[in-house]
């Protein structure tokens, strides 16, 4: 059942495409030697090139090119050995040169595709139109002064990858899943840190609506949406606005809009009135970017394992598709899981990581990159379960103690005497005591009230402070009651 929004005139389909701007991980900027670090003092990471001073010229940063190629390979996309930079001309306070150097006619990366997985487990392929390199603009601060905006050029010239999708998405959920997937791939590749709070990733969301069976209607672009949640909200809000316009008998006209996160609506951007006439032309200060196929092949050979491949490998290891999906969402999680699982039962490891460990992260508001229990210690805990030192419930107790103390599980078991009792004789003695103390219930059981079996097991475990091996306890109780 496809997603629609119900209007007065019936259901409307959504057509969504995303242009994701992802900041390239590099030391220096795309065309200058100034640093890219986030949060520096204003205008402290600015070369005269980034500030558009007279006579300044761009020189391309090799690593930024390599990062774009890695990303293209990660998106299963065509790498163009010949590409070119163009100038996109417009005036804006934080655009020092009066143009952005971008790749318009000949991008470095061509068509590709990614697969997204939706909540119901259904997968869908979203087409990538292109990826191009371009420089970021500076930042305008509007809240520092009553009548002025302040300009900080630290971001000016930082390398961005603009990843343009086909208009293949049909619901807010798909848009969210696509952005999540792109972010995941980029983080695996190490080409973008994906920190949306810091502006390392932001999306221009192209939305149109249509009736079933129609071609495309006019789209609007909602600029610079900076979280996955906001992308989903912006899609919904913009679609509803357009439906209202169409249903009122008006026409949606193509324009650039902003998502007002506080009010949950989109509004027109006055400052983009020249948006239709950027006067692109080839950047005369930069000859074409020509790549050697050997160099591209070397980058390909050195590419890390990507999430889809990793997920398939986990399924082959015996994990459920769901666990494999969850464990590969973040590269850090996958690395953590693999350390826990190394040389151990993968399913057991997956259960513990996705179960108790994730619950602990949630509860303690910690991150897998900064875990409250190390992967090595969690692995050691699994060993204690496998060799029957700990029962499941004992292991949970030990895990809690590990969270509190940070100690290794072996140490906790020693200190607290939490070793599981597997000595049949010791268990028989306790069972005998329990039966003696509950002679009436023994009689009832033996006269047919078999559901009392659990009572005896529980009493035995309680008497043993939970340390009895559950299987053995069961067995001994059964034998003893059979009398």
């Amino acid at each position: 059942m496809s997603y629609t929004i119900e209007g007065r005139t019936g259901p409307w389909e959504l057509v969504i495409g995303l242009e994701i701007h992802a900041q390239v991980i590099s030391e220096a900027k795309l065309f200058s030697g100034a640093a890219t670090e986030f949060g520096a003092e204003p205008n402290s990471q600015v070369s005269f090139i980034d500030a558009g001073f007279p006579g300044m010229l761009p020189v391309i940063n090799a690593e930024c090119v390599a990062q774009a190629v890695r990303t293209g390979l990660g998106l299963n996309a065509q790498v163009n050995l010949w590409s070119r930079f163009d100038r996109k001309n417009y005036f804006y306070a934080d655009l020092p040169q009066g143009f952005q150097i971008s790749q318009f006619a000949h991008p470095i990366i061509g068509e590709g595709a990614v697969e997204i997985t939706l909540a119901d487990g259904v997968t869908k392929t979203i087409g990538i139109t292109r990826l191009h390199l371009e420089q970021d603009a500076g930042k305008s601060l509007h809240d520092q002064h009553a009548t002025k905006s302040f300009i900080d050029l630290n971001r000016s010239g930082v390398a961005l990858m603009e990843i343009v999708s086909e208009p293949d998405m049909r619901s807010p959920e798909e848009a969210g899943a696509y952005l999540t997937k792109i972010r995941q791939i980029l983080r695996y590749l190490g080409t973008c840190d994906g920190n949306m709070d810091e502006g390392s990733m932001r999306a221009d969301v192209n939305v149109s609506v249509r009736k079933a069976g129609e071609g495309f209607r006019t789209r609007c672009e909602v600029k610079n949406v900076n979280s996955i949640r906001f992308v989903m909200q912006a899609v919904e809000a913009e679609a509803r606005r357009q439906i209202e316009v169409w249903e009122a008998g008006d026409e949606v006209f193509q324009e650039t809009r902003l998502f007002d996160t506080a009010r949950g609506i989109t509004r027109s951007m006055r400052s983009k009135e020249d948006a239709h006439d950027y006067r692109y032309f080839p950047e005369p200060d930069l000859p074409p970017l020509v790549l050697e196929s050997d160099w591209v092949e070397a980058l390909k050979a050195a590419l890390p394992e990507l999430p889809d491949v990793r997920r398939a490998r986990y399924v082959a290891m015996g994990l459920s598709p769901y666990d494999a999906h969850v464990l590969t969402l973040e590269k850090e999680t996958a690395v953590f899981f693999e350390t826990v699982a190394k040389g151990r039962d993968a399913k057991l490891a997956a259960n513990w990581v996705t179960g108790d460990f994730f619950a602990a992260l949630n509860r303690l508001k910690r991150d897998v990159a900064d875990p409250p229990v190390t992967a090595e210690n969690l692995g050691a805990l699994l060993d204690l379960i496998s060799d029957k030192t700990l029962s499941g419930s004992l292991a949970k107790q030990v895990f809690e103690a590990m969270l509190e103390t940070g100690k290794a599980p072996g140490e906790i078991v020693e200190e607290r005497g939490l070793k599981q009792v597997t000595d049949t004789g010791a268990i028989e003695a306790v069972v005998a005591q329990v039966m003696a103390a509950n002679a009436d219930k023994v009689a009832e059981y033996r006269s047919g009230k078999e559901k009392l079996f659990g009572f005896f097991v529980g009493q035995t475990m309680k008497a043993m402070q939970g340390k009895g091996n559950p299987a053995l306890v069961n067995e001994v109780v059964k034998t003893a009651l059979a009398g």
Partner: protein
Amino acid sequence: MSLDTATIRRIASLARIRLDESEVQQAQAEINGILGWIEQLQEVDTEGVEPMAGGSPVAQARARLRPDVVNDGGQADAILANAPDRQGEYFGVPKVVE
């Protein structure tokens, strides 16, 4: 192609150059004169010709790449030294409403 005054105004606006009414007329006459002269290019047969972008006399010119090294920046004072309206560590402009 002869440009009307509306087009002259649109171009001036795109180029962010303020023109008063008399300047619009003058610009129209001059620009149309120049464009009329340029028009002769249309008679050149350029079918199948690869356009020449950039100034290199060598057709196979290609970009040189720079190592990813930080060797610039850290000079906010020099960056701001020529600013017509310096506001602390920032450039100041009239407030922009988006």
